[in-house]
Each structure stands twice: as C-alpha cells, then as structure tokens.
C-alpha cells in the first residue's frame, strides 16, 4: 500500500520530500489546500478511511501482541492465525496491536469482516484459533462465541453491527472509562505512522509550530491544568515556562519512560500501543520550551517499547516530522533514545540526568532545578510518558476542553495499572475525581473468589494504602494525600483479606532498601533498619532469644521516629517518601501490627514463622507420613492412631501441612 508520505492526488499536488509544506499533515486528510478539486478531496477522505479500516475489502484480524499479550501466549495465537490462513488459503490481513487494556482477557483476537464491525474475543489461546476463525470467518458469531468468549464489538457508523453481540464500549470494564491517552492503544497498528495520522495524529504538533508561539503554548498547557503524571503532580505548563525563560541557547526535553514502580505498566503499554502519540507529545513539548534535542530515557527491560519508539522516531524523520527545519517552521528537533540499566532511582529527575550524562544514577540537591540547570548543565524539562501523551489532545482541542474534565485542582484523566486481587486486571483510564470504588468494583469487577476487599495500594513504593473505609475517596492529587497516599505514577494494587499488611510494608521496604542509590545516609541506612525491624516483627518466637525479643520491641518503638527522620532529611523524593508504605499501613492497619507484635499472630496467614501447627485428631489417620517428613522430629504418635505436634520442637516449616493427605494438620 502506498504510504501517506508519497501521496499525491494529482499533478498539481506539490507534496513530496523536497517540498516543505507547513500544512502537510492536515492537507493529507482535509486537503487539498493549494488547489480546489472534488476528486482530490475525495481521494484524501477515502484514503484516510482506508487507513482507519472503516470498510476493509478483505477480512482483517487483530491480535494484541503487547508485552502482556505475549506473556499470556499471544505469540502462539499469532502463529496459529498465520497457519490457519495459510492452510485454508484465506486472504486476510493480520494486524498486531498493543494492549487494549484488559490484560486479564489476553490473548485478545479481533475479527473484522468486510461490511461488519470489528469483534473482540478474549482468552484466545493458540489451540482455540482454528475453531474460532472457522466460525468467525464464516460470519457465524454464535458458533465463534463457543470457541472463545466474546468481549464485544466496536461501534462503527460505516459497518453493520452484529446482532446479539454486545458493544465493547458497554462492557463494564470500558464503559466508565474516559480513554484519551489510551484512545488508540490496542486499536491501531502501532508500527504504522500512517494509521496514527489517519486517526488525527501530528495535527496538533504541526498546528503548534505553525500557528502558536512558544509562550502561548506554555500558557495553553498551563491553563489546561495538566499536572505531571509521573507522580509529583507539578503543573506542566509552569515547569515549561521556567525552562523557556531560562537563559541558554541549548535546551533539552527528556521523556521519562523509566517506569519502575512495582505494579506499574502504563507507560510501557502506551509506548507499545501508540508510540507516535508520545513522540508527538515530545515534539510539542520540545517546541514549547525551545529544545532542539530530546531524549527518551527508557528502561532496557522494555525491549518491545524500545523497538516501537525507535521505529516511530525513524518513521517520523522520514516524514519530515523530526529533523531540521520541520515543515519550514524554523523549528528543528532531534530525538535520541537512551536506555537505562534498570535502577529505580533513575526515574528521579536529577538521577536520570546523571544517567544520560553517563554518570552513576544518583540524585543531586535541588535547586538548581533541571528546568534551569539540567542535562549537561542546560535548561531541561523532564516529562513523564503519560504527561506527554496528553499534549496532542490539549493542543488540538484547547485548554478548556481538557480542564472541563476532572476536579478543581486535578484536570483530565489518569491511567492506572490495575493489578493484584481484582477480577479484571489491566490498564484503566478514568477522569480525575472518579471514585476509587468505581475503579475497583465496577471497572475492575471487585475482588475475586468471594474474598473480602482489604486495601488498595496506590503510588508504588512512595505511596500508601487506601483501606476499605476510604474506598469511596475521589482519585485526584489532593484527595489521595488526605488519606496518606499519593497519586504516584498510576500503579494500583488491590489486596484482599489474604494479604498481610505488615508483609506488604516489608515488601516495599525491601524494594526501597535495595533500590536506594546509596548516596544519602537516611535513605540508605534508614530503610535498611526499617526493613530489619519489620523482619523482626514477623519472625517466629520459636527461634528467638531473650535479647532478640527485646530488640523486637525496641525496634517497634523507634519505627515512627526513624520514618520521620527519613522523610525529613532524605535527599530526593525516593527517600523522602520511602517510609510511606510503613506509615500508611501503620495508620490504617495498626491492629495488624499489634497482633504480630503482641499476639505473635498473622491473621492472613502470610507470615509463615508466626503460624502454629496442630493436628486435628478426628481427621488424622495415623499414616505417620508427617512424622517421617518432619525435619525437627516434632511429631509424635504411633501408626494408625492420631499424631501430635510438640509445640516446643516445631520449627514452623509447614512440611507437615504439605505432606498430610487428609488435611489433618491445621496451621493457625
């Protein structure tokens, strides 16, 4: 298929690589502007519709091959699809898309037959492909649904809907969402710039460099109320203004794609599924602050995202959207990918700067702020992936459009990565101010297996837990702070009654003390000691000496003091927020801590060392298996009569539970 960059409607069309037309992108869709001809206009409209696949001539199959899809087996699904088409000599296109968001339903396979809407099927593993496609390609959706459950069909004005197939936008997972950033993710082919342009891409950027001055652009973004989506929530436009007004010829823009919070995968999904949106956002931001060089700082652990963004940069260059004197605007931009080695702290602005400079990723004191003195000592703006992905929408639709959605101080939408003990895990984008309950229970489908909801961890290692009693909280920057949590980058981990909150605190503390850069003392040494205190709390009494018991109590006494000093004195945001997981669990789940400390009990049964074991005499058949396996010789009994565990000898390893075939060993 001819590429958009080569498109010419007739001889009068002067588009080409040698001609820098400032209106090139809109002309491709709404033109021609330089001459009037109905046929030429129609050619454009039809071309765009074809790129959007509104009415394909042959069947199109879509498969979600983002990292989550591949993890769920989309690679096998794709292979099976290719094999099926080849074996049956069917002429159909296969398009690999990113993750549409419902990760739990992956691998997702969509079928779009000519004249019909696109239908999504969920959990299509490789072996289901043949059955599904046989029915679906024949137009027998009822039969196809037997092969794999249907998620829903896309809405289209150009094609006939399938009867009895629900619409995707009515699915409880999608219905309450407001998909701005995720608009194209899972829908378009991320490897084709043409599709992005056909869906309205790069209009905002070309409009900005043609019609909007830098200060105007900064003000527009400032007025929209867009705040940094990386977690801190600083007004993006205000930050730009600092850099725009900072003296200096050379300025830099950095896209922070060093997504490191456990349970966060928003940035990865956006880059994998719609890389050009991020790139366009970068181009807009770079223009806004007057940067001629931009970096994508991305984790090397995201190989697919790296591949996608690299391809996107190459394509954009070919189209003249990047490079020297873009569309004769006088604005030039070079975008470079810098891969990070995976240190969590490199998501912090100044550490990230050091990392790009080739130094060890360690934060430095601020001021001077990067917007004044950043990368290579030049004014630098560092924006998160999601922040940047919001920009095309704001520039296209205006600040009022953006600020109409959200709460008083938090505008627009926020993408969350929903994971943990929730029925529908995946990527969710909701308007700011949406109730936490709606995200978890309506979109997420609540806690599975009939378990009770306990808490939602938001904001990763810097964040906190929202307990049941606050689950009606509105999700925005300020409200979350009142509950001792933060917005963070968007990780949202749901926990049920089987989760031990002390264990959760321990998990995050362990993460932080390993990922601390090691520079400032409170963070490096303090988090390590906090972890040790938690480890002591969850340590069994069996192996504890008198002095250790004393240390356990002593540690608990100092936990708060330590947390406060770490918050008060640490060098960077990572350290200053490091105690949050402990402070927030202490605040809302104090009783669980007390049970661990005083009663030596873990109600969730997670802290193995605190469990005690006994044998239910009624169930025990006296098979002696447990006594033989017990490494501590702590089980007493004769064959064919009930056995007994000697508490003083038991080391709490749990081997007996695993050994017993009659469920006679009770751990409590």
């Amino acid at each position, binding site marked *: 298929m001819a590429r958009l960059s080569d498109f010419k409607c007739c001889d009068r069309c002067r588009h080409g690589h040698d001609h820098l037309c400032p209106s090139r992108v809109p002309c491709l869709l709404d033109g021609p502007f330089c001459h009037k001809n109905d046929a030429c206009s129609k050619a454009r409209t039809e071309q765009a519709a074809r790129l959007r696949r509104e009415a394909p001539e042959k069947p199109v199959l879509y498969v979600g091959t983002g990292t989550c899809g591949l993890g769920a087996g989309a690679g096998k699904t794709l292979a099976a699809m290719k094999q099926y088409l080849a074996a049956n000599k069917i002429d159909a296109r296969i398009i690999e898309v990113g993750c549409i968001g419902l990760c739990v339903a992956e691998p997702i396979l969509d079928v779009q037959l000519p004249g019909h809407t696109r239908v999504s099927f969920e959990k299509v593993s490789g072996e289901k492909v043949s059955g599904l496609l046989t029915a679906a390609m024949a137009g027998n959706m009822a039969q196809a649904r037997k092969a794999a459950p249907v998620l829903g069909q896309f809405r289209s004005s150009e094609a006939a809907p399938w009867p009895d197939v629900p619409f995707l936008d009515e699915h409880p997972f999608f219905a309450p969402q407001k998909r701005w950033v995720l608009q194209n993710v899972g829908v378009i082919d991320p490897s084709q710039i043409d599709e992005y342009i056909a869906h309205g891409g790069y209009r905002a950027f070309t409009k900005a460099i043609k019609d909007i001055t830098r200060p105007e652009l900064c003000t527009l973004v400032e007025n929209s109320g867009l705040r940094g989506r990386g977690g801190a929530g600083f007004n993006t436009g205000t930050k730009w203004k600092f850099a725009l007004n900072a003296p200096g010829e050379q300025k830099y823009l950095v896209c922070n794609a060093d997504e490191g919070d456990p349970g966060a995968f928003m940035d990865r999904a956006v880059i994998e599924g719609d890389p050009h949106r991020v790139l366009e956002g970068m181009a807009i931001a770079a223009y806004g602050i007057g940067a001629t060089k931009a970096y994508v700082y991305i984790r090397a652990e995201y190989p697919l995202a790296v591949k996608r963004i690299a391809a996107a940069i190459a394509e954009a260059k070919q189209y003249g959207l990047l490079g020297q004197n873009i569309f004769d605007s006088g604005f030039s931009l070079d975008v470079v990918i810098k891969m990070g080695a995976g*240190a969590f702290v490199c998501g912090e602005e100044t550490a990230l700067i050091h990392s790009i400079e080739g130094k*060890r990723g*360690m934060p*430095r*004191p601020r*001021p001077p702020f990067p917007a004044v003195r950043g990368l290579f000592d030049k004014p630098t703006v560092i924006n998160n992936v999601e922040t940047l992905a919001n920009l095309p929408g704001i520039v296209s639709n205006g600040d009022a459009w953006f600020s109409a959605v959200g709460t008083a101080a938090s505008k627009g939408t926020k993408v969350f990565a929903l994971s943990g003990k929730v029925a529908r895990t995946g990527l969710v984008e909701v308007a700011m101010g949406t109730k936490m309950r709606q995200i978890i229970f309506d979109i997420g489908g609540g806690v599975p297996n009939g378990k009770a909801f306990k808490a939602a961890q938001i904001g990763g290692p810097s964040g906190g837990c929202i307990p049941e009693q606050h689950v009606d909280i509105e999700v925005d920057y300020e409200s979350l702070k009142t509950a001792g949590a933060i917005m963070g980058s968007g990780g949202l981990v749901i926990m049920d009654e089987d989760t031990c909150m002390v264990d959760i605190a321990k998990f995050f503390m362990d993460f*932080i*003390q*390993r*990922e*601390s*850069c*090691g*520079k*400032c*003392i*409170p963070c*490096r*040494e*303090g*988090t*390590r*000691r906090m972890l*040790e205190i938690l480890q002591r709390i969850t340590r069994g009494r069996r192996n504890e000496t008198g002095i250790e018991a004393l*240390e356990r109590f*002593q*540690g608990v006494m*100092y936990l708060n*003091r*330590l947390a406060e*000093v770490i*918050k*008060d*004195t*640490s*060098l960077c945001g990572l350290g*200053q927020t490091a105690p949050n997981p402990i402070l927030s669990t202490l605040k809302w789940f104090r009783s669980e801590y007390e049970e661990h400390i005083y009663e030596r009990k873990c109600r969730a049964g997670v802290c193995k060392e605190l469990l005690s074991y006994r044998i239910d005499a009624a169930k025990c058949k006296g098979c002696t298996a447990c006594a033989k396996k017990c490494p501590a010789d702590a089980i007493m009994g004769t064959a064919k009569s009930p056995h007994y565990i000697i508490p003083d000898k038991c080391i709490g390893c749990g081997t007996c539970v695993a050994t017993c075939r009659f469920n006679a060993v009770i751990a409590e």
Partner: protein
Amino acid sequence: MNIQVNNRTIEAKRGETILTALKRAGIKVPTLCHMENLLPSGACRMCVVEVDGQRSLLPSCAFPVAEGMKIQTHSPRVVRARKTIVELLLAGHPDDCLYCVRNGSCQLQELAGELGVRDRRYAGAKTESKMDTSSASLVRDPSKCILCGKCVRVCEEIQGVSAIDFINRGCKSRVGTAFDEGLNVSSCINCGQCVMICPTGALREQSHIKEVTEAINDHNKIVVVQHAPAVSVTLGEELGIKPGTDVCGMMTTALRQMGFDRVFDTSFSADLTIMEEATELAHRVANGGVLPMFTSCSPGWIKFVEEFHPDFIPNLSTCKSPQQMLGAIIKSFYAGREGIDPRNIFSVSIMPCTAKKFEAERPEMTQNGLPDIDAVLTTRELGRLIRRQGLDVNALAPDAADTPFGEHSTAGKLFGATGGVMEAAVRTAHYLLTGEELAELKVQPLRGLEGVKEARVRIGDLEVGVAVVSGLKNAANLLDSIRAGRKDLHFIEVMTCPGGCIAGGGQPLGTNTDAVRRRMQALYDIDRDGVQRVSHKNEFVQRLYKEFLGKPLGEKSHHLLHTKYAKREAIL
C-alpha cells in the same frame, strides 16, 4: 541581605549557601560530606536546618539563602535528625574505635560525642567488607566507610584520576575500584588526598612504623633517616603546636632520642636535584631536547603521566626525586666513606607524602638488588612514633642534623611548597647560565597557593617561560593546552597535591587552607632569614661533586641520580 538565624539577624550574600552564611556568623553546623570550593553533594544530611515554610529540613550546604529566611540550626527537630543519622551510621559501623587508627581524630566519633549518642538504638546487620591492603601506600577498609563520597570527589574533581567510585546499589553501596580489583592495579596514584579528607578510618596510609621500630632495635643495622623539607613545618601540628611552626631542631633531637643513628635532611638532596635538573634543562635548551621539561620530584605525578599521559614521558626530567637521590647516595658514597656494608644500612625517610612509599618500592630505585630507601614514614606516623616514645617535643633542646647531608640551602627547603622547586631552579639556572646571582632571589609570581602560576623569567639573553601547577586536574588541563599547540613554556613544576608537599597526603589530618598558608609562610620565612639561599652554593653538594660524582649529568650521576619512566598499564 539579612536572614534570621536562631532568632538573631545575620548578614548573607545573594547566591551563597546557608552554610556559608552560618559559618561567617560563627554558627557551627556539623558536616560530613561538605568540601570547600567544590559543588555541594548533599549526601550526608548532617547539615540540615529547619527553615520556616519548608516542608522538610533543608541541607544548609546546598540551599541558597533568601531574603528574610528564618532558620533554626539546633531546634529539637534538627538535633534529633542529626542524632538519628549518626545512630544509623553507627548501626552499620564496626564499632571498634579503640583499635582504629583514627581513634581520637574521627569525625564520626566526634559527632557521636557532640550529639550525645549513648545507646545502640538500631541493632542490625553490620556493613562488612574486605580490607584492601594491596597498595604500597594506602589501606582501604570499606567497613568503616560512611560513603560521604569525599574521597571519590577528590580523586575525580581535584586529581582527575577517578581510581575509585561508588559501586553496587542500596545498602550494599560502597566505594570501590574498577572491577573491584585491588588498589595496586587500579589507576590510583597514591597521593593520599583521600586519606586527608576521609572522616573515618576507612582510608589510611600503609604504615611502616613496625619495620622502622624493628630496624632501630636491631643492633646490626645502622638506621639512617632523612626528613623532607615540608615535614619540619607541619610535624608541630601533629604534636599540638600551632600551624606554621618550624620544629626542625627539636625533630632532629627527637629522632636521635628514638634511636636513629644518623639524621639527614632531604633539603640537601633537593639542592642536589636542582644542580642536576637545572643542568638538564640547560642541556635540553642548548641541544634542542624535548621541551617543556617537567619536574619529577612528585611520585604521584610521575605515575599519573605513566598511566594517563604517556606521550609526555619524554618531557619528564630524568632526575630522581630528592628522597631517592639521597637514598642512592647514602647506600653508595656514604656507605663507602664510612666503611659500612650497604646491606647493614636501613634507610628511612620521613615524608609529607604517601606516594613516596610507592616510589621507594619501585624496582628501578635499587642498587644491586638493595632498595635505596627501606621505609617511608609520613609526618603523621612520625607524630605517632614520637607520642608512643613519650617524647615532649617542647622540652627537647634543638639539635643540628648530621654531616655531610644535613647541610642545605633555603632554596632546597622551598621544595616543600608549590612553586618552590621552580624558584630554586630559577636561582641556580640563572647562575649557571650567566655566572651571576639573581638580583632579587624571591620570585614572587611563583609564590602562593594558586593551583596554576606562570612567569616569564629573564636569564641573560634568554626569556624562559615557566609554569607551576599543583593538583593533577590542573596539570592535565595544562597538558591539554600543550598538546593543543602551546609553545611558550620551557619548564614546568608539577606537584600532585594542591599546594604542594605542605598539603601532602601524609600530613597531619584536619589540614585546612589556613594551616597550609601558615606552613607555606614558615618556609618563606626560613628562606628570607636564610644564610645560604641558593642550591649551587651548598658547600657539601660541591664537595660531593668533587669527591664522588664528578659533574652534574656526569657518569656517576647518570647511574645514581637519574632514572627513566615507561608507559604503565592500569585499569583506567
């Protein structure tokens, strides 16, 4: 501008940090990672203060003052934070102060005392790490390291060597060499500037006290000692005397009382060095040799050139350093004259320097398999030895060094400060080339503590371009400019340590700019009051040439007083 500190108003200058303003006002705020004249790193958080309107405590070393700022430097919140930080450091620390070389001079110990740390509040795992004793000059004990990062910074930002940096992550972070190999195979130049700024016992010199003591107690050994020009003006500080006091005579007495058989002065061989070096320079100028010529008395600088700038090896003077010249003369000429078997001589030098320990162990610094120098003590080690022997330096009657190597000109004494070698060389070169003494012996542009000094000196019809640099980052910059085509320089003095030997890596701990300035002044005063102020008039140097060496750059000199250097492989 005015700021409010602890409810009183003090003056502050726009753009300066809170810490600078506090210091000027005489308000002491503890620091561990702060380094004068370098950008703040903000690592230790000891200097935090409470500022009205700020959410968290602010590091005073890194935060600029603002008009009307209200600061509390010792509020309960601040003191508790500082104390907690020290407690956290101690929790991972070996806790073996009584066995530590820095017992009594440790900043962590001092802070723990000041803040009243009396409980082991945070029990837990210790930071354990293997000691690195591989270096000839330095010992690293990472388990005592508090990761203030000053050693890393001095190595990179002052010396341009970067032999050490942070490795690992989180609480496993520590300072290490490339590939975590021993310091001996790293690019370390042994300057010991890291030891000078280390707040704890994580870095120290490789001690030779034991070897020296054993030699003194061995009755078959004649123990000969020489002391470097910079030692007599710094040793006093080690013994509680105020900076800038020359204790040369008392030191000689102390050395004798401790059992050294002969006491010589390295300033003698400094004069000898000048004779050789000035002649070499004249020779290079006259015969179109490689110019500019660089001095070669500073062993850190030599290793630096061998590793990082081998293309400049031909520019290095072939002269051995004064320590090695005297060492070579003692075990040859002196042994012969006194009828002592050189194998029975134990030659000790007292140096302001840790790199001298490495230099003494270089394989080329030997005669017939015997090292010219057997042991090197730093000023600090000498101080330790004197204290151990219970000597009260103030109560000792000054004594003169032994002949023939006790005699020296004050030009030789100037070697101890940056620019001193050059000044002495200029005086002698002038005489050698014109037959006349310089009218004004003091060469003012070469004096002072600046890292880079330059002068154009007129010697007869010749105008000679000379430069003096100290601190190897400065030296590297100069080398770059020469590589880039600079041609106006003929002779360049390079000292590894900023300020020269008076601020060397073997000097008393707690050295600051003020002390260094006083030490420098002491050397200038000695020169001002000196009877013999030029090296070529040193009578014993003249006799040495007449009786033994022949002439400068002669056959004997070539064997005993000169050496050569080669490109050195190191992990850079």
